[in-house]
Structure formats: C-alpha cells, structure tokens
C-alpha cells in the first residue's frame, strides 16, 4: 500500500513537471509567433529573479502571499470544497489588519502587531465561513458564492478604506502605525531593502500546521473523510455541516493572512482598488500544481511567484510584454487539469521505460 502511494506520488510529480515544461513551451511558441526571442526572454526572467540580492528578496516577497492563498485553496480542496474565494478572504483579511493597524495607537509592538494579524486572519476566516455556512445550511454551491463574495469583498474593502481610513487627498488609507509593522528591517537591509517581513516564516509555519491538522489530528481526519465521501462521513457519525464550515473558516484564515502581511509587512497602507490584486486566483493555480499537498504548495508558490516577479525582467531585458507569463501560468494549469493530454505527450517515454523494465 505504501509503495503504491509512493508510485502515484512520483507519477503525479512527473505530470506536474511535464505540465510546467509544456506551459513554458506554449509561452515560447507564442513569443516566437510574436517575433520575440523566447530564449533571451527566459534568460532575462531568470536573471531578474536571481540577479541581485534585492531582486531575490523581492521574489520571496512575491512568493509569500501565494503560499498562503495556495494553502487556503488546498485546505478547502481536502474537504471537498472548491475555494475560489481566496481573493475575497485576502481582501477582507487585509482590511481587518489595516483597520487595527491604523485605528489603534499607543500599544506596544508585542500587542499591536499580533492583534492586527489575528483580527485580519479571523476576518478572512469569517468571510470564508459565510460560503461554508451557505453550503452547509442552504446547500448552495461554494463555487458561485465565493465568486460573488470576492466582488462583495472588493467593494466592501474599498468602502471601509474610503469611509473610515482614507488619508485626505489620497486614494489610499493612512499608513499603519509603526507598532503594527510586520517588516523585518535588519533582514530587509541585508537584501538591499527588499520588503521582507514576518509573513514568510509564518507562511512556512502555516504549511507545517496544514500538515499537522489534516494528517495528525482527529479534526483533520474528519475533514478529509468529508472530502472523500460526505455520505460515508455522515453515516460514520461525523457532523458534515460543521466540518464544512470549519474547513472554509480555516481556508479563510490562510487567505486572510496573505492580505494581512501584504499590509503589515509590505505596503503599510491599503489603496482603494479598481480590481482585485489576484493573489487568490493565483492561489488556485498554486494549489493545483502543488497537488493540494503543503510541500507542493510551497514549491508551486515559489514557481509562480518567481515567474510573476521575473516577468518584469522580460519586458526590460527582452522587450517581451510581461503578460506572456499569464499565458504560461494559464497553460500550466490547463495541462495540470487535463492530465490526459500530458499523459498522451508522455506516452512514448512511458513505453520506452516499460520496455527497459521488460528487458531487465
């Protein structure tokens, strides 16, 4: 049984890698068709990510929220729920943190900053729980409700920002107080003032917590059981509805934390947004690529964060519009989702391997 699981694991890792390669190839073909040099573009991307300490630090900054939103989507997936709402939970978490960061004053860092983090996380969690509650009590599909809640979150966040937190004459909130900042100044200095913050270690810790909760606790067992077969879980005496709400609450906390640290660690203010920043949607891609497993999510976030940050280098270095990277990421998800195509492409390799095995 263990061996079988290992085989499946390695097989899906192969499919993931093949999907990434095919995605990059798709991007290269489109660049060629547009008259660009894909090799120069990918080299420029690589150089942008690893070129300097500052850029490497900023890449880590870009990766961090993707780990959180990836964990958010993956956690819900494990309970059989499709959380498209990470985007909205991100925004609500962000707004909660900004509110505490701006409105409270005179508190020591050790109280203020953690309080802002917790309020933001819980706000994101509750936003997620709305979709969970609608599913559990009214049977409404979470895909549609989370899409709608994303837009509601966008407008609601803008309302809170512009009605209560707005710095006069600006399209953004007041700066948060220094006592709520989650930046790490000494580390930022070591990375050429890249905006590094406590969110990164917390995100990695979050991946560990993800694993412990789902595979080492009774609650996690029940969550996964609901994900595999809600009817069986119900029959076994589990309270499926409460588990659904719990899973969406947890997913919302993860996504909320992504927004929390964007404010407390990176920007220190919140703008009135015309559209969503997109970390939640990228989280879906990250979770898919990471096969909903915490280590996979961290790796997937590193890939997507690296590609996204490096794409700026493509436009400077090789004059390629950075939007090409959206096409690459889209293609990668496409190939992960339609594993049939990838397996078809890989078929010749599998055949050869089969023959070698047969010979031996």
């Amino acid at each position: 049984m263990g061996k079988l699981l290992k085989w499946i694991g390695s097989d899906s890792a192969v499919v993931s890698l093949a999907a990434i390669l095919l995605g990059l190839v798709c991007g290269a073909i489109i660049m060629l068709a547009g008259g660009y040099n894909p090799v120069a573009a990918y080299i420029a991307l690589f150089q942008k990510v690893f070129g300097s300490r500052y850029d490497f630090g900023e890449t880590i900054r870009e990766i961090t929220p993707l780990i959180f939103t990836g964990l958010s989507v993956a956690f819900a997936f494990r309970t059989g729920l499709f959380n498209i709402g990470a985007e909205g939970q991100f925004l609500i978490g962000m707004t909660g943190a900004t509110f505490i960061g701006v409105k409270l004053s005179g508190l020591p860092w050790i109280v203020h900053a953690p309080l802002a983090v917790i309020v933001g996380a819980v706000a994101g969690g509750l936003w997620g729980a709305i979709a969970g509650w609608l599913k559990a009590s009214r049977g409404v599909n979470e895909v549609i409700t989370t899409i709608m809640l994303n837009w509601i979150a966008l407008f609601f966040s803008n309302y809170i920002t512009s009605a209560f937190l707005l710095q006069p004459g600006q399209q953004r909130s007041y700066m948060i107080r220094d006592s709520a900042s989650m930046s790490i100044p000494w580390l930022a200095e070591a990375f050429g003032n890249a905006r590094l913050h406590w969110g990164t270690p917390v995100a990695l810790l979050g991946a560990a917590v993800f694993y412990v909760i789902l595979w080492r606790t009774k609650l996690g067992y029940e969550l996964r059981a609901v994900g595999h077969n809600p009817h069986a879980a119900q029959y076994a005496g589990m309270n499926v509805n409460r588990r659904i709400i719990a899973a969406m609450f947890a997913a919302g906390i993860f996504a909320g934390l992504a927004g929390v640290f964007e404010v407390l660690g990176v920007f220190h203010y919140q703008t009135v947004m015309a559209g969503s920043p997109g970390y939640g949607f990228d989280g879906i891609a990250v979770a898919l690529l990471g096969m909903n497993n915490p280590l996979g999510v961290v790796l997937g976030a590193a890939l997507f964060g690296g590609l996204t940050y490096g794409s700026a280098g493509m436009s400077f270095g090789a004059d390629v519009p950075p939007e090409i990277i959206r096409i690459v990421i889209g293609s990668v998800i496409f190939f992960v989702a339609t594993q049939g195509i990838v397996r078809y492409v890989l078929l010749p390799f599998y055949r050869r391997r089969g023959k070698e095995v047969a010979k031996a």
Partner: protein
Amino acid sequence: VSYLNQFADLINITLVFATALLFGALGGIVSERSGVTNIAIEGLMTVGAFASAVATYYMEQADMPGPAPWVGLVAAAALGMAFAWIHAVASITFKADQVISGIVINFLAAGFTVYLVKLLFQGAGQTETLNAVFTKWAIPGLSAIPFFGRAVFTAYPTTYIAMILVFVVYYVLFRTPFGLRLRSVGEHPSAAATAGIRVLRVRYIAVLLSGALAGLGGATITLTTTSNFSHNSISGQGFIALAAVIFGKWNPLGALGATLFFGFAQALNNWIQLFSWSRSIPQEFIFMLPYVLTILVLAGAVGKARMPSALGEPYDPGKR
C-alpha cells in the same frame, strides 16, 4: 417634462449596460443547460471585446468605416468560439474539472489579449480609440412616440440583436428537438445517450455557441461603451452575467429580467451622480448589489433556483 426625459434617459442607459450582460448571460445559459459549467464567460467576453476592437481598428485603417463594427462583431464571435473550444476540449474531451478549465480560460484571455494589444499597438496598454463604433438607431415611427421613443426605440443595434436573441434562444431551447437534446444532456446525460443522443457532440456545440454569444457581449462593450480595449474593459461584467444566469434561473426570459435589473443598478449609479445629494450614498453598495442578490437567490431567500442536474459533471460513457 424634463423629469420624464431624464427618466427616459435612465432607461436608455440601462439598455446599454444590460445588452452586454444579456449576451454573456445567454451564453452562460446555453452552456450550462448542456451540463457544462461556464465561469469562463468573463474571459470569453474579454477576447470578444479585444477581437472587435482590433477588427474594427483595421477596418478603419482600410478605410471601410461603414461595415467596420459589424466585422468587429463577427470577429468577436469567432474568437469567443475559439477560446470556448479550448474550454470544450479540456472539460468535455479530457474531462477536466469544468471550473478549473473555466479559470484557465479567464487566465489565458487576460494574458493573451493584453499581450497582443502590446504587440499590435507598439507597447501601448490599450488599443487606439475607435471612431467607427456603433451609433444609436432610431426606429422610424416608433422613435417618435413620446417617452418610449426616447427610452427604448433609440438604441444601439446590439441592443436590438440581443433582445431578438433572447427569444431565439428561448425558442430553440424549449421548442425545438435540438433544444430538447441540449437540455437532456444537461439533466441526465446517460439517459440521453441511451436515447441515441450524442452527448459529447451536443455539449461541444453548446459550449461553442456560448463562446460566440459571450464574445458578442464583449464586443458590445467595446463598440458601444468604451470605444477601445484595455485590460479592464470587462472587469467583472462576465461574472455579473453569470450572476444573471442564476438570478434568471437558467431561463433566457429570466436572464433578460435579471440583466435589465443589473443594468438599471449600474445606470442608476451613473445617473444619480448628476445630483449632489447622491454623494452621501456610498456607491460601493450599489456595485455590490448584483452579487448580493445572486447569493440571496441561491440561498433561497428570493425564490428557489434549480440548476441543471448534471451541471459540472463530465460525461463518461463507461460510468454508471
């Protein structure tokens, strides 16, 4: 009389906003009635808006401004179908999760269109402003009727097309053999297959049609509202169209009502800004309205909605 005229203008703006949503919603209905979830409407509208802007622009350059917007419409439907085909291949042939496939289309559409705009327009973030866009048609005779002439019978040609399409889609879905087949593969694909219906083929046709319709919706925005294409031309209208599908209970006539309502909310938002008292109302709450209503409808607070039974399930002939 001036109040009456203002109210007529309000209705007129409502029709402009509702038209794009209506195309998108009709696309969503056709696809979802066949059992294929289509959260790709947003992306399909994006490629439609892009294709119409580019086609119209090149027609202008070729000194043919007359047929330009019509060519734009055709191009939008065609590119919408091309992207819908990707959705169909992934979710019907390869049985990928339809929601994921839809997200992929939205991703690809956002990247592809802006990439091409930058390629075609020397690095600019949006297309050139178009001159040969649609102008409003006053229907002879009817447009002379007081109030209604100003409100309803002086509209963009796309509005008339969309209104006609509502009844065409309704008729096809509920009064023709093809419509019956389309609905049956969305309700119970195995039973439909037993009755000799080629489930996959019907679903393919439905998804391609939805791409064409959503593409027209995107073109409507370019050719009647924005007069160019940029990355935020659509900005969520596809999701409002999706909301209208649900609010309209997967019925074209219901969707017509829903899109008129959402269009009215948008128009009202623009309209009340003409008055100084409106500044005290946070407009964010008006923006939220379509989304909040959708959730209320789904939660059963505003009438009960029943979605097609097989919605979201890939058809697998080997499965019981």
